[in-house]
């Protein structure tokens, strides 16, 4: 029989909070983590703001040894290690105690690139024919699976240790893949999550694509405007989110807190056909993904209390709402509450899905819907589909049963996951 899968640990490194407590407070109060970014300005970016987690040396030294920090230059691995270890400890778990790996625990921790700054540094050395001066850690820091490899070593994991990569759905996908592994009995516990590097070398391509906003450089906190009439592109950001997934049996036998249950979900692609392309979603596929997620979770559209959307603050926001409405068969006042975390933290790219899933699970656990900021001027195309009261502008205390989270990404890929409040039943 399939295992039921629950969430027993959370960790987050976000632009508006680098630990669970600060992050929870920030999302409840609509605290923005978007700031002016001097480096982007100096390099001539159109978008001169970003959401970059701020970490002190003291904090970093609690997660990485002086030897690990020697020649270390990978923000993505750093964020992933912090969020991942925090989630592990939050679940009441500790690192290795002897020489025996934890055979029943693994990790699926995604990223888009790894150690892009380390890679840049290395490329300069290589071109100067200084290969031997690269040192021993270039591979570990720049291989895509660097983040899962670091975590696997720190936690002594003996089950699958891997990194997935699928653009902006990466984080949501990692959780669904971990869920499947536990559900089918191949692992008891999986650390699922994703991370994304910070800085100009990761964000420049998006600036060149003109998908980042350049109209709000003088008002960083107002710049990320999902669902608003004045949405003009996303704000690039970074960080990591991590969740410990565990079989219900294991969580019960350990007697630990259960944040929520993963009811199910779906991952698909639109094949870059129809309305789909490398950069735009095939709407038929998006709707199919959401519908398949409901079916997989054994629920109907009306069972969803709140949606945490992808909603990046581009012209595509209205299309996303239309897709949700069509997939759920709900509109107007019947539509669930919906919010976008990107209004306060920007678009964390490959880290977006996991950080936003952490926020979704916190909503279920504490019973609230976090406010959308910067959409007082709602896009009329959106209010033509759903009632404006379904888009909370203020913190809403509310007992939630089911939250749906979806992510959509380049390559025409989609992921939708369904979380349910866990009650001892």
């Amino acid at each position, binding site marked *: 029989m399939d295992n039921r899968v629950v969430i027993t640990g959370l960790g987050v490194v976000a632009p508006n909070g680098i630990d669970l407590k600060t992050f929870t407070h920030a999302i409840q109060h609509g605290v923005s983590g978007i700031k002016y970014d001097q480096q982007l300005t100096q390099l001539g970016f159109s978008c001169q703001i970003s959401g970059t987690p701020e970490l002190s040396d003291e904090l970093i030294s609690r997660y990485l040894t002086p030897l690990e920090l020697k020649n270390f230059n990978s923000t993505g691995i750093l964020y992933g290690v912090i969020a991942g270890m925090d989630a592990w400890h939050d679940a009441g778990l500790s690192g290795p105690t002897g020489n025996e790996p934890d055979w029943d625990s693994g990790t699926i921790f995604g990223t888009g690139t790894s150690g892009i700054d380390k890679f840049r540094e290395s490329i300069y050395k290589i071109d100067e024919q200084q290969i031997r001066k690269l040192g*021993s850690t270039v591979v570990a820091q720049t291989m895509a699976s660097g983040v899962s490899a670091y975590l696997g070593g720190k936690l002594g994991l003996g089950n699958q240790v891997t990194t997935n990569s699928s653009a902006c759905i990466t984080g949501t996908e990692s959780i669904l893949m971990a869920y499947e592994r536990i559900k089918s009995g191949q692992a008891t516990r999986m650390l699922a999550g994703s991370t994304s590097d910070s800085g100009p070398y990761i964000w420049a391509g998006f600036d060149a694509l003109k998908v980042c906003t350049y109209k709000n450089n003088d008002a960083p906190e107002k710049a990320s405007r999902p669902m608003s009439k004045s949405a003009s592109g996303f704000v690039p950001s970074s960080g990591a989110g991590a969740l410990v997934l565990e079989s219900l049996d294991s969580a019960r036998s350990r007697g630990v807190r259960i944040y929520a249950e993963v009811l199910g979900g779906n991952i698909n692609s639109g094949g870059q056909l129809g309305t789909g392309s490398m950069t735009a979603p095939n709407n038929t596929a998006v709707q199919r993904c959401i519908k398949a997620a409901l079916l997989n979770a054994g629920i109907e559209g009306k069972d969803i209390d709140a949606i945490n959307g992808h909603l990046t603050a581009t012209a595509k926001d209205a299309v996303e709402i239309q897709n949700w409405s069509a997939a759920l068969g709900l509109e107007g006042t019947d539509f669930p509450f919906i919010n976008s975390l990107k209004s306060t933290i920007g678009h964390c790219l490959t880290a977006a899905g996991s950080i936003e899933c952490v926020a979704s699970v916190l909503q279920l656990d504490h019973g609230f819907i976090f406010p959308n900021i910067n959409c007082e001027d709602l896009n009329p195309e959106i209010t033509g589909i759903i009632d404006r009261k379904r888009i909370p502008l203020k913190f809403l205390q509310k007992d939630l049963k089911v939250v749906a989270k979806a992510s959509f990404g380049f390559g025409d890929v989609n992921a939708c996951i369904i979380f349910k409040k866990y009650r001892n039943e």
Partner: protein
Amino acid sequence: MNREEIIARLKPIIKVYVDDKSSLDHLDESTDFIKDLKINSANLVDIVLDVEEEFAIEIDNTAMEKMLSVGASIAVIEQKLADK
């Protein structure tokens, strides 16, 4: 520079790569980096880079391969200093 002086300058370099710092208490020329100090073999290339910087010398691949113990490292350093 005598061998004691070289050891004194070598010790802080090596220390960074050693988990159990107490193993450094009995450091002498016979100390093996991997067997005695449990240094990760991947870090041997980092030690060589640090030694190059500290003594302002350049260590070629052949010499590098010999630097598995304190004594062997001292021999390489002495040789390279003499060649300067």
